[in-house]
């Protein structure tokens, strides 16, 4: 577009040559991100199906297994992620309305909530390791109960582990856009990365919203 010869310096700087204008680029990037999120949902979907199927076969083991999980820690983590989603939304809004310092503050807050989530996760994991509540053949819990608890903890570590890995990646991405926000690279004309990382972060949050009741609130 020849119209961006005056003004729109930002739009021009970040537009790739194969797009006609910034809007096309933004919409394309967003579509790509949604597609990627669809793959994430299907991947976790496989785990949910396996988990639900085995739960229907061994309900006692699932109930016994979930008694070993700390509901308080799980709830605090849920609150942390919900708050982080809120600050992420605020960060996207701030970036899209040219409020640099607000963007930075909200991104730091999001990062802090995510970090808090991982710290609590660390304490939960070490506690499980200590009690021998481990997957499969490493299950060595002395307190008894149905043997299929070993399978429950297989799912527990697979699901929370893969989710935790996504949180870590999210933290990396948030740090990356935080650094770019500090350099003042975002404006109402161009804030695509903030928006896309936001979408990703909401998915990470959403998956936890399903994981929490599935794992911690079995009845």
């Amino acid at each position: 577009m020849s119209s961006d010869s005056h003004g729109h310096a930002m739009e021009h700087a970040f537009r790739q040559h194969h797009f006609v204008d910034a809007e096309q680029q933004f919409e394309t990037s967003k579509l790509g991100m949604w597609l990627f999120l669809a793959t994430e949902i299907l991947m976790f979907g496989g785990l949910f199906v396996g988990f639900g199927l085995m739960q229907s076969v061994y309900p006692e083991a699932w109930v016994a297994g979930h008694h070993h999980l700390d509901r308080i820690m799980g709830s605090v983590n849920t609150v942390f992620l919900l708050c982080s989603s809120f600050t992420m939304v605020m960060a996207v809004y701030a970036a899209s309305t040219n409020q640099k310092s607000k963007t930075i503050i909200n991104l730091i807050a999001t990062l802090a909530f995510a970090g808090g989530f991982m710290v609590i996760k660390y304490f939960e994991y070490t506690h499980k390791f200590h009690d021998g509540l481990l997957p499969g053949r490493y299950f060595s819990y002395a307190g008894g109960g149905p043997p299929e608890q070993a399978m429950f903890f297989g799912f527990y570590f697979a699901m929370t582990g893969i989710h935790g890995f996504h949180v870590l990646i999210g933290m990396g991405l948030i740090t990356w856009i935080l650094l770019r926000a500090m350099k003042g690279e975002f404006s109402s004309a161009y804030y695509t990365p903030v928006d896309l990382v936001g979408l990703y972060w909401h998915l990470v949050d959403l998956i936890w919203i399903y994981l929490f009741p599935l794992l911690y609130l079995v009845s």
Partner: protein
Amino acid sequence: MADIVATPKSHAQGDHHDVDYLHDGSLMSWMTTVDHKKLGVMYLWSILFMFFLGGVFALLVRLELIAPGRTIMDAEQYNKAFTLHGAIMVFLFIIPSIPAALGNFALPLMLGAKDVAFPRLNLASFWIYVTGALIATTAMFTGGVDTGWTFYTPYSTTTDGPVALMTFAAFVLGFSSILTGVNFIATVHKLRAPGMGWFKMPLFVWGIYSTAIIQVLATPVLAITLLLLIMERAFGVGVFDPKLGGDPVLFQHFFWFYSHPAVYIMILPGMAIISEVVPTMSQKVFFGYKATAFSSVAIAIVSFVVWGHHMFTSGQSQLAGAIFSFLTFLVGIPSAIKVFNWITTMYKGSVSLAAPMLYALMFLILFGIGGLTGIFLGTLSVDIHLHDTYFVVAHFHYVMMGSTVIAFLAGLHYWWPKMFGRMYNEGAARIGAILVFVGFNTTFLPQFLLGSRGMPRRYYNYLPEFQFLHQVSTVGSWILGLGFLIMAGYLFASLRKPFDAPSNPWHARTLDWQTSSPPITHNFHETPVLKQGPYDFFKPFEPSVEGYHE
């Protein structure tokens, strides 16, 4: 996601716009390119190498089977050889073959775009593929895997060897496939040339688009299945192990939920190529354009609900079996619509018998056989007899090789002049094509007979009465190999010539032919504005690219 910082300076009023994309041949320019054409070519060489490797294992397997008992290897080596043949051909060759190699090259050109939607993601996808290939190679050289490419539990969780590594390779390759799919869907949605509505898109684009949908929706399920399998081996969680209360059939459900749609990841792009070659080589408007376009989407949708036909004998409930059998028949409808439309398109056209068309005609014959024998196998009662016999082996080779690989060859010969700017020797190409056709049928027709007479698949040894048919099949594999050898010869020979291909040797109407051969770096001098439909052969040619002359 691709980060979107560009360097606009370098694209300002460049002189390098006008040189062809092969001009800068330095190694770094290839390794770090974000040009879809160069990435397509790099994929092409990679998959051709894998095809060669998988082909060597196929020849070894056939050679072993020339006589009962031990011929050149022992039973364990034989198990590893057919596993490597299958895993290489499926994960490293066929799945990326048409979409990632030819699709990468042709899709943006056909849409009149400068590149795919996310060029850097495209580069990442290529290197992830290479990483997956290297991991798979490591697994091969550190003992090899003997599970078959399907990794069925509980055998895959108990056998020795680097199964976890091989599985991880498939996981990584799946990731590459997902990213390519995401890229292509976004490209088709957002980067079509002005004037190109959905029903003005070439049918190749429809096919690749449908394929991309399956890649994006099915591959993640394979990813999680393979991760669970790795966990199973590492921790003995027991999800798939009946000893620990798990269910091995669950693995089959998970595996085929991906891998049956994956079969259509393999065949849809093949059909897409045929839909391009047939109207162009017949110089005739495509008969039933919309029906063919929608049939691709229909196949993509139905592909998700037929996975249970792999488990008719695995202890699935009878009701589920009957439903899956019925749903499987449904696939026949959109497939048959395509075949009728291709044939009707040729009717009263001026059909050229150049190499791409020879392969397209072979496809019609071989896909007919492969598709119809699929109906036999989808039939519940017949499948009880034929399950896990050579009939199945013959069937899926007619579809995977007889259809997809032959369509790939049609596409390779069709776009070769555009990709490399050179014409190959047409006479040699026809001889090669005939040898491939004869060799293929000699190899696989006897396997239908073997299977219907009860020869089980994957067996190292067999009864003496099967020997004659096995020998015919092995001889066929040599003819097939010779055909490929000749093909390699004339294709490589063409690369030694200076550019001699006209920009539109087949007189096609799609945009990929309205630029030089090989195309310039940014594909077109001006953004094309679509003037004609892709198959408007009944009208005089009117270029959509300003200043283009044939």
